[in-house]
């Protein structure tokens, strides 16, 4: 059971890191539906860099860098060009899906490096992710920058009038968010599951995106959601540990995705939406032009 818990926590870490980045993005009003693409690219480049150089540090650096770079690209399209953020996000996803398949293919297979040592039986990234939850919470609610980020996401015109540079604040968030997504991908391929395969995420990025909606843009609720999903994921892989012999393994595999839809639907009911509607950053997904 302990093992199951450990694996659940480690799976949660992947969701959590990516979702935290997306949460930052969305708090600043930028919706990046290409989260999965950023994770794919971050994971792939981190894997390649680590395997060719033999250094985990360089691997993570590559993951962070490409994540930040793609975040920047999304920022350029959605902030400077004021384009449709969904178009740009979907573009990033398909771009990453296609290019990582090509770039990563020669590296298909296990990483073949000694494992990153665990701390008290848990991957160090579990602690990192938890620390980042606290950090993001402190940043958003207890710093001037956080107030600026939240304001830019709610009402960019008001923020601009208060002397805050909306574009720079948003760029900061998309780059930070992109780096966290890249880190999430890198953690996946270097620590959680150090083997490369094309499209290795199989929808985890989209689940993370959904998690941000569940969380009502609150890092603590996000943490709970991520833990829940990490657990669901692990159970769907080894259902026999709790419920032996019930349902086919293929049905179990679909459970995390079905759960996502059910929760998405639940939080969208009018009963729930009165609260949810208030939490959603008002300017989310809307391009902002000065006057």
């Amino acid at each position: 059971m302990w093992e199951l818990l450990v694996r659940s926590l480690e799976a949660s870490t992947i969701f959590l890191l990516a979702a935290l980045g997306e949460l930052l993005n969305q708090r600043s009003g930028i919706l990046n539906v290409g989260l999965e693409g950023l994770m794919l690219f971050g994971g792939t480049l981190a894997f390649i860099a680590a395997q060719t150089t033999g250094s985990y540090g360089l691997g993570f650096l590559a993951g962070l860098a490409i994540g930040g770079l793609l975040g920047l690209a999304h920022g350029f399209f959605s902030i400077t060009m004021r384009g449709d953020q969904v178009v740009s996000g979907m573009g990033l996803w398909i771009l990453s899906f296609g290019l990582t398949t090509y770039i990563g293919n020669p590296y298909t297979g296990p990483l073949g490096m000694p494992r990153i040592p665990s701390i008290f039986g848990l991957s160090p990234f579990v602690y990192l992710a938890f620390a980042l939850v606290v950090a993001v919470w402190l940043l958003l609610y207890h710093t001037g920058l956080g107030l600026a980020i939240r304001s830019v996401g709610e009402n960019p015109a008001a923020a601009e009038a208060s002397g805050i540079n909306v574009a720079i604040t948003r760029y900061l968030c998309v780059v930070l968010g992109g780096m966290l997504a890249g880190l999430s991908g890198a953690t996946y391929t270097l620590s959680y599951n150090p083997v490369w395969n094309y499209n290795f995420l199989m929808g985890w990025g989209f689940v993370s995106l959904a998690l941000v909606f569940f969380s009502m843009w609150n890092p603590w609720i996000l943490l709970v959601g991520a833990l829940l999903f990490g657990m669901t994921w692990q159970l769907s892989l080894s259902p026999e540990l709790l419920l032996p012999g019930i349902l086919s393994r293929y049905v179990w595999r679909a459970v995390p995705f079905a759960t996502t839809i059910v929760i998405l639907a639940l939080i969208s009911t009018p009963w729930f939406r009165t609260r949810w509607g208030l939490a959603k950053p008002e300017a989310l997904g809307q391009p902002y032009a000065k006057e």
Partner: protein
Amino acid sequence: MVRFPFTHPEPEEPLLAARGITKRFPGVLALHRVDLDVKAGEIHAVLGQNGAGKTTLMNILFGLLQPDEGQLYFRGQRVHFRSPHDALAMGISMVHQTRKLVSAHSVLENILLGHPGTRGFLNLRTIRREVEELCHRYGFTVDLGAKVWQLSEGEKQWVEILKALYGGAKILILDEPTSVLTPPEVKTLMASLQALVQDHGVTVILVTHKLPIVTAISHTVTVLRSGTVVARLRTCEATEQLLVQHMIGQDISSYSISDLLVEKGRPLLRVEHLSAYNDKGVLSLRGVTFSLHEGEILGIAGVTGNGQEELVQVLAGLRPPASGRVLFDGRDVTWLSPLDRWRMGIGYIPAERYEIASVATLTLVENAALNFHFDPLFSRRGLFNHPGLEKVTRHILSHYRVKAPHLYAQARHLSGGNLQKLIVGRVLARKPKLLIAHLPTQGLDVEATAFLRGKLLEAKAGGAAVLLISEDLDEILSLSDWVAPIYEGRFVAILPREGADAETVGAMMAGLRREEAGVS
């Protein structure tokens, strides 16, 4: 203490000056070589009609926009404002016409947003104490923990002024500060501004198109018309008449409205105890009851946000009512869809002409089709009758004096006035039995306003019942047969036009009850 404005020693140079400011927007020359001088310790009014360029000029003074040509001087020094940040650093602060507050945040958070002292970690307790002190000094009372969306418009304005003062503002730009305030709130505001200038040495630039306010509190006035300065006066030397002449620049009697006498028809609309929730789930329309006859105009007067939006949306079928019912032509239409209402002859002109009443990237013909796509005259077996649509669009363009390059231009290339004419024309072309007109002339120039008001009267003459919702008391009083001041989701009264005067209706809009407003 100084009692009269002009006992100030005449300063050598203006505190803030603009020279030769020119600003172009695609296709529009918004400002043309505008000069402005603001002296320390004065209330400087910038007067002009809608579209005269006042707000653009202020946005330039505040660094939100950069001029294409011209320079700004602060205490005689050349300055470049690349963003509001630079202006704020000079102690220039702006309270915008549209509230620049984050409604999801608390009052305190809004006040400290963008404050230079908020880098790094926030010490909310200290900041709170400071702001409370500030409130105390200026005699403001606001609940700092309240969320901004819970506040009234007047309170929001205080928050903005407070925010400016907390930011150390020495020059306060107020853009149309009274447009959404009730008359009593306007009075309080004016008193406070005078106190700020006299007791605390703040300089105020007041942008408005309301003459009484200019004459009541300003020291100096600059009049803008079509992007150029047409006059610079000391207020004490100016008369209202003179200012009007400068502001309008032409004789507007040609647009004056002749009252068309209409015989009262049969009852058409009956609304009973209608209530509705707003988007945030707050009951903001609370039991409205009235009836309307053919050939009548009911003017609903009120400051935006008192339930008018919800009322028109319920009547148009866009919002479900919380309770009550609507009878149209003797039929219960409370739960009918918008489409059915269009078909029954309810026409709706929404206040949001860009967001709701038109589609920017569609052609004029397709925009016209918004009100005709369901009409059997224009669609047969699901196919459009394109010649018919073109014909009706051409008709609207010519009869409603819409200036447009051609039928297939995109709607976004029309100016606000022309677009509104297209919308009104489109709705009226359906010959609706009931016309709901929500802020039909807001933000339009004098010519367009007069033209559209005339069209509303024509519709009434044609036997339509008209529900006119406006913030403009003049508009309400000059067009309506009945006047219903609305306050916090309730009609304070429904008065016949003869029994309604500006003062009474204004008081009722401010929430005074009938008796207090002097109506028996």
